[in-house]
């Protein structure tokens, strides 16, 4: 069970996340929705501790995540895997090494720096790639892959972390509709098959409705909606998204600007 209590994050005098309290039971697939700049990314990054909260508390199964430091903090990060809009792979390394990077927290620094991966780790990484039907590209450089392939590699990397939770920050915003499906299906499978909690920032409401057990709507850093997708009426959606409402409800995912895709490729 993940518990957020009165979570606040200020950037200078700008309040990005404002007093967020949430409880997420293990195994849920939660969609976090809201317009651009609402604070969705900041919220997820705080849970992984990429960003430190200004105040408030993050608790997981009785552990005070906000107080963790050094080795404990790194161990927590391994347990709360992140997926990024830009995939964040190392382009010059091959796919298998990118996936093996998910094991870094569990391998000694000396062994990992020399790339002395154990056979178990390699088998685990290959199996993870197999899960998403991309074991055949294990030896290719990550930068040579399509966006959809890269995101699946990123999910495989998250999976070998053996995480309790996956935090996905707009995982499909740089993808075309077909790859959007593939990646969302992969996330759903990770959730259903391994029971891993998934928190997923989504821009498209249709996707959020289709894939998630629960939706959390954020506006100006505050939680303004928290319920099953069916309860999200058009009226609430319009309030949540304001002027962006028509875009997010009509054409999911296809509105990723071409530039973003080009940079990622």
């Amino acid at each position, binding site marked *: 069970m993940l518990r957020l209590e009165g979570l606040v994050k200020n950037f200078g005098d700008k309040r990005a996340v404002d007093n967020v309290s949430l409880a997420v039971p293990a195994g849920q697939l939660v969609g976090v929705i809201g317009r651009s700049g609402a604070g969705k990314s900041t919220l997820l990054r705080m849970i992984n501790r990429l960003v430190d909260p200004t105040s408030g508390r993050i608790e997981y199964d009785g552990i005070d995540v906000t107080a963790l430091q050094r080795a404990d903090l790194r161990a927590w990060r391994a347990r709360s895997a*992140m997926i990024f809009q830009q995939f964040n792979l190392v382009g010059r390394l091959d796919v298998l090494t990118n996936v093996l990077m998910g094991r*870094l927290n569990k391998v000694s620094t000396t062994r990992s720096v020399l790339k002395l991966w154990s056979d178990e780790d390699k088998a685990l990484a290959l199996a993870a790639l197999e899960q998403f039907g991309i074991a055949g590209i294990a030896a290719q450089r990550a930068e040579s892959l399509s966006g959809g392939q890269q995101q699946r590699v990123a999910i495989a990397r998250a999976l070998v972390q053996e995480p309790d939770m996956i935090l996905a920050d707009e995982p499909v915003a740089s993808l075309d509709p077909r790859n959007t499906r593939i990646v969302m299906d992969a996330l759903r499978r990770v959730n259903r098959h391994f029971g891993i909690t998934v928190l997923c920032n989504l821009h498209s409401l249709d996707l959020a409705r289709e894939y998630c057990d629960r939706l959390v709507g954020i506006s100006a850093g505050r939680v303004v909606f928290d319920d099953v997708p069916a309860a999200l009426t058009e009226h609430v959606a319009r309030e949540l998204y304001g002027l962006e409402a028509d875009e997010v409800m009509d054409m999911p995912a296809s509105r990723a600007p071409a530039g973003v895709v080009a940079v990622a490729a």
Partner: protein
Amino acid sequence: MMRAYAEAVAARRARTALGLVILLLLAAVSAHVSEVDIGKFVDHIGGVGGYFDRTLRLESGARVWTDPADWLWGWKRWGRLLVDTLLIAYLGTVLGVIAGFFLCFLAAENLTRSRPLRFAVRRFLEACRTVPEIVFALVFVVAFGLGPLPGVLAILIHTMGAMGKLFAEVVENIDMNPVEGATASGAGWVQVVRFAVVPQVLPNFASYSLLRFEINVRGAAVMGFVGAGGIGQDLVEAIRKFHYSDVSAILLILIATVMVIDLLTERLRHRLMGRGAA
């Protein structure tokens, strides 16, 4: 409208002219202060030509190229000293690059959060590259005695300082997304550097190191001036003892070697850069 434009242009011209005058004045003042005497320069410029002319004649007065065997009589010894010089440059470059490699990450703003640590490493690197190699060599000759060791150490330190800074700048320009990805998955600092940073910067580092090797060969050639090994020893002796044709012979060998190295490293660098762009 037209007049306003013409006036603006005139004003700009006047400013440029004024700037030029100031520049020339400053040059004259600094020449005076540092006792650079233009008259003396003009008087003696012919002497330089005369000196080089003199180095191209053998003892007998014949032109050097009429008797290459006599001109290059010392080629065995010079060849050996040249190999020494190259080894000094090579060892100094390799060790200096390795040291610079380990320090550059600590000097990079995007990887090292601690300001005092970054500041200390940066100032240290600065000191290492600000002091000329030859000064380090002189100091080390006093400490370790004559021979190639002081030369290697001098080049090592200077290379570390120069490469550390250059490498740090390369590191500060990397794509931070992979760093974020590795950090978020629980990797430690060293692991993040190893996996998310090094693969991005390695081609650039290799290219800069090759360039540095080229520079260090030139540097190593004068190490002998202060007794720090290599061919410089014979060169400075030939100059001091007025063995004119030996001066030109050694310079010829040196220039030929540097040219070959230039060509080889340039080719290698282009290959590296080509792969870096892919």
